[in-house]
């Protein structure tokens, strides 16, 4: 089962390497990892999606806690939260196909952010299933390039407490 860990870390050099290294050394699988500064520039938030049973997740959490630069870890999988991924996708789009593509973009409330002679770049945000659905819908036109961020997530309501 996939778990989403929201991890606050000190914005120190090497912290990403420490976290990523811990996963690889202990044989845990990172599905995705997104990292960026928080409202406090000294602190970054990592959203880590990791696969494994409860015992694996417990070990991951405990081992992460041992890293001095890790401030706080929340497994928000079962909490009410909002999560998003961002995808940029470049698809084949000759004049004949453009109309249909624009309809798909509309349906998914995505946006066209660049138009080339034979292609379009589409920006889409949403949870993983929506992003997957857009990708699937656009695949028949021919995907030229695709880039996805990892998942970022935030808990609903009050500031999250341990």
């Amino acid at each position: 089962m996939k778990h989403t860990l929201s991890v606050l870390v000190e914005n120190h050099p090497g912290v990403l390497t420490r976290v990523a290294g811990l996963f690889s050394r202990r044989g845990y699988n990172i599905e995705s990892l997104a990292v960026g500064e928080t409202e406090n520039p000294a602190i970054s938030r990592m959203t880590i999606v990791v696969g494994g049973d409860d015992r694996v997740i417990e070990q991951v959490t405990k081992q992460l806690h041992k890293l001095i630069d890790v401030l706080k870890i929340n497994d928000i999988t079962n909490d009410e939260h909002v999560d998003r991924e961002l995808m940029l996708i470049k698809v084949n789009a000759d004049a004949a196909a453009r109309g249909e593509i624009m309809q798909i973009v509309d349906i998914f409330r995505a946006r066209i952010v660049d138009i080339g002679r034979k292609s379009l770049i589409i920006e889409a945000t949403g949870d993983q299933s929506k992003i997957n659905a857009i990708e699937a819908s656009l695949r028949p036109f021919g995907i030229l390039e695709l880039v996805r961020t990892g998942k970022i997530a935030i808990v609903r309501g009050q500031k999250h407490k341990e």
Partner: protein
Amino acid sequence: MKMTGAQILLKCLEREGVEVIFGYPGGTVLPIYDALFDSKNLKHILVRHEQGAAHAADGYARATGRTGVCLATSGPGATNLVTGIATAHMDSIPMVAITGQVVSPLIGRDSFQEADIFGITLPITKHSYLVKDLAELPRVIKEAFHIASTGRPGPVLVDIPKDLTMIQGTFKYPEKMSLPRYKLPSSGDARRIKEAASVISQSKRPVIYAGGGVITAGASAELTELAHRCQIPVTTTLMAMSCFNGEDSLSLGMLGMHGTRYANYAVSDCDCLIAVGARFDDRVTGKVDTFATKANIIHIDIDPAELGKNVQPHVPITGDVKVVLGELLQHMEPQEHPEWLAQIGEWKEKYPLRYESCGSEGRIKPQFVVEQIYQMTSGKAVITTEVGQNQMWAAQYYRYTEPRTFISSGGLGTMGFGLPAAIGAQLGRPDKIVFDIAGDGSILMNSQELATAVHYQVPVKVAILNNQFLGMVRQWQEIFNDRRYSSTDLTSAPDFVKLAEAYGLVGIRATRPEEVRPALEKAINTPGPVIIDFWVEREENVFPMVPPGGAINAMLGGE
């Protein structure tokens, strides 16, 4: 008052109570060595290879409980520390490793003797720093010592670019550290401790399984009190050999792959296993699904990540082992387990550790050498070991009576550890006789440190159990590879007596059983360092032995 970064560094080390630094100079640490030249309070021990510096700092830490400090230059100096840092990390030994780095503007340009030691050591340190500003150096040093020595200890690396040690700054030792979430568990959960007390009280066949954490926490007295009050036999891991008196009738010796039959039988049959500061290592558990299956397992450790990592305990308790045991004792009434102890007594009688005696014609048995060292030092010496057969015999046939007197690379299993560790241990414990029980293979991995022992007249006694084989690997080849001794014959070894003499040590050779005691007597009575070259039975095996991946109650040998 203005001083150089190097002087500030030394001031910080003094403030941390450092007495001795093991190191080797080089380009990027020149300013530090220049400052050391004037230092009155810091003793620097010049080793002959940086690996020796790390192991010596480690041995010093294990023998004294204080944080060991080693110092090396950038590039190869730093990378030579790596095995020593990994050794300390696996065994949770407090160490601060300081490395010089190329000057800041040259970092990242593949400069001469540049290596990313910060990156290289990330997975083998408890924490690490690359100092970028002299102003933060004092705080970094303070944090490094705090992190290394508290909680579950471990090595901390501090990489300092050369330019920072040359510029001027002011020394101000910080009051505070910047470690917002570095928490130290102290007392355990009171409810769980009560639960543990009740599990122990209701058990008929309890066993204590003590690990290195008992020594780290200084909890031998509490552990011994629990064992005595509740009449619970104690088995120890390799890391914990000296935490419970080996001469005590409740002692089961070591468990696991080369543990005693009675310890492995007791653990396999017990109904309550009290794991204290131990981590259920594969060399202890064998096939983990078959380990202590009849027992309610109580697991006490300061590192919550150890609870449930390898074996799921019934009662997990996070906390300082000494504090938790102290609290547990408040709930424990005296107990008797006459049937259980009688059963264990029967096993002890039936399956003692044993070997065929040397006989008058035979060669020296390595076990006999270890036994004689034990007898002649009354179990009071500090014993360091190399790795392999020598290490296992030192664990089996010497009975340790005081904490911190058995010093061995348990987790990483580092050959070449014993000699430099013995030097460090002896410098930390000048009152003790220190023996390095070595093999003819291992000793050559850091034999250059003989020069260090001679230079500082560190009176370590190196007892080489010389079988002209890489003994433990040969043993596995004998048992599992049909005696195909691939690359384990070490017949073309140096003459160790001449090697001793070449370095300026006293060298003694014993080739027959009756020469063992006189050789040891001479070694002990020689004021300086000594090598004793014992020519032992070449194909002697370490028994009992649990084949890797097997259940620990299915042992080979020692029946």
